[in-house]
């Protein structure tokens, strides 16, 4: 008998759909339910946000309130306050430029070329300095603008960037101290780290903003903004220290022994051998921590800063736009989403890439 090998016919498009979504009655019900929910939500959302929405300020708040959909006019009318807070109107380009600096800085730090201690420190140091000069002015013919006038997205970004800039080196120090061979040093540091970690961030911000001035001599108190940044950096570093320490534990002990046997001193071993490997191990968790702490900068609203959320509240809270709170919150949520989502996607990508290269 002649054997004829026939490849099974490629499933048609309909057949493929049936298999994927309607294989069993239960699957069919599930698929239909999900589809209904999705179509319903998508329609509602699109209708509200696009089809029935008002985009121009021409009609004024009254026409906008009457519309069935979203009133994006509030954003068109109030976007400056959301982005720049109370920053002087004619100087707001500086605030905008400062935000761009932060974005560029973040993008640069995501490129592997910059992943050496010196380069990343350079990027962040220079970026933050540029940001500060742009915002504060007083040099290069820029008018002086005090910190009390900073606000909106620029303030949020400033707090985030300085938190990381102070918190990251601090985290490395804490991690090194905690893994010290000297028992009292590691124990004391452990106590500090665990203590900070067990407290909510809000209580730490509150302590640094409100309570610390009592405990400091006059000349050391500084501006409330910088105290709060210090508190936020401390909180960040307590979490990041554990991540760095985890990365260090992933470096085999033989690495340090080899460095010792080659005659390297403590700081040479740490800087050249331990940290480069530990930071690599800790990279995905570190990015995740950055994402979390970016979201957490929004908490400074509670100790009275005019960051993006507070300026959003002000954008709809006064005068004729009182009804448009959903639009304002949606807009701010969207800004956060863009930052956080892209960073966390990048983190996930790195994690995947690293787990592949390990194989």
């Amino acid at each position: 008998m002649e054997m004829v090998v026939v490849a099974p016919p490629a499933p048609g498009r309909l057949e493929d759909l049936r298999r994927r979504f309607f294989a069993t009655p239960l699957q069919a019900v599930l698929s239909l339910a999900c589809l209904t929910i999705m179509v319903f939500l998508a329609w509602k959302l699109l209708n509200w946000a696009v089809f029935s929405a008002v985009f121009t300020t021409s009609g004024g708040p009254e026409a906008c309130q009457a519309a069935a959909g979203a009133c994006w006019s509030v954003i068109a009318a109030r976007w400056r306050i959301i982005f720049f807070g109370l920053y002087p109107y004619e100087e707001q380009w500086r605030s905008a430029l400062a935000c761009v600096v932060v974005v560029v800085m973040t993008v640069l730090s995501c490129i592997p070329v910059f992943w050496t201690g010196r380069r990343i420190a350079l990027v962040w140091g220079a970026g933050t300095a540029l940001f500060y000069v742009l915002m504060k002015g007083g040099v290069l013919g820029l008018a002086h603008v005090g910190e009390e006038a900073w606000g909106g997205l620029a303030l949020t970004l400033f707090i985030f960037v300085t938190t990381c800039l102070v918190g990251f080196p601090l985290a490395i120090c804490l991690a090194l101290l905690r893994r010290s061979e000297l028992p009292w040093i590691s124990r004391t540091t452990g106590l500090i780290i665990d203590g900070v970690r067990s407290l909510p961030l809000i209580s730490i911000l509150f302590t640094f903003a409100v309570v610390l001035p009592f405990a400091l001599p006059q000349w050391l108190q500084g501006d409330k903004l910088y105290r709060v940044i210090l508190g936020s950096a401390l909180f960040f570093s307590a979490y990041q220290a554990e991540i760095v320490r985890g990365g260090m534990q992933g470096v085999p002990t033989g690495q340090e022994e080899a460095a010792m046997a080659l005659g390297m001193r403590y700081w040479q071993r740490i800087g050249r051998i331990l940290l480069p490997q530990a930071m690599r191990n800790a990279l995905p968790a570190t990015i995740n921590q950055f994402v979390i702490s970016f979201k957490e900068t929004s908490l400074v609203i509670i100790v009275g800063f005019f960051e993006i959320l507070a300026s959003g509240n002000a954008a709809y809270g006064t005068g004729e736009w009182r009804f448009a709170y959903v639009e304002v919150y949606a807009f701010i949520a969207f800004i956060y989403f863009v930052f956080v989502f892209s960073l966390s996607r990048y983190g996930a990508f790195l994690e995947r890439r690293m787990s592949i290269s390990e194989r």
Partner: protein
Amino acid sequence: MISGNSTEPGGPALRIENLDKYYGTFHALRRVNLAVERGERIVVCGPSGSGKSTMIRCINRLEQHNGGRIAVLGTELNDDVGNIDEIRREVGMVFQHFNLFPHMTVLENCMLSPMIVRKQPRAQAEATARRYLEKVRIPEQAMKYPGQLSGGQQQRVAIARALCMQPQIMLFDEPTSALDPEMVSEVLDVMVTLASEGMTMICVTHEMGFARRVADRVIFMDSGEIVEEAPPETFFTTPRNERTRQFLSQVLDH
């Protein structure tokens, strides 16, 4: 061999007196005595857990001894930080698991320590590194990362890396135990060459063939003590101690 800045010309390379080492309550080394002359090649063997690795790790302070004295090249190994640094500069070490730095190329592995510890200029460090890579017969791998090399190649790089510091004593801690059998000989060949050039070597190894060919003295350790110490011909033919005989029959009979 090119000799580095010797601390005390003449004199023995290593002197260990009444060395004691505890891990908690476990007595890992019991009053060990050993003297090694310059240019001497010592092979240390013994069953696992006998303290042979611990002993050579005490020599460059990877382990801290609890009693007795160690003097390396005339320098006393004590709590003085300066002495520890000095001894580590003059003593090279090769590990069982290579311990190459995975984030650096082979060349960078070899250049790092001469540059930051010996403060050599980059060009000189690179020339030295290339010369030693040549010597261990892998000059063509200089730009690769350790992860891209075979075990035998990695171990040869590790030897070159240690040699780049131009040490006066080389310690080998079971350098072939983690290798696939077909790669053992390429590493041993390098060690034999090194020995023939007059390097002071202390090797912990189970390679009895190597011991027979190269060693000036073979030392047998068991339970933290030196049980037997003899030139290879007497060690292998007429061991005096019962434990040595037992060990040799286990190692050699298959």
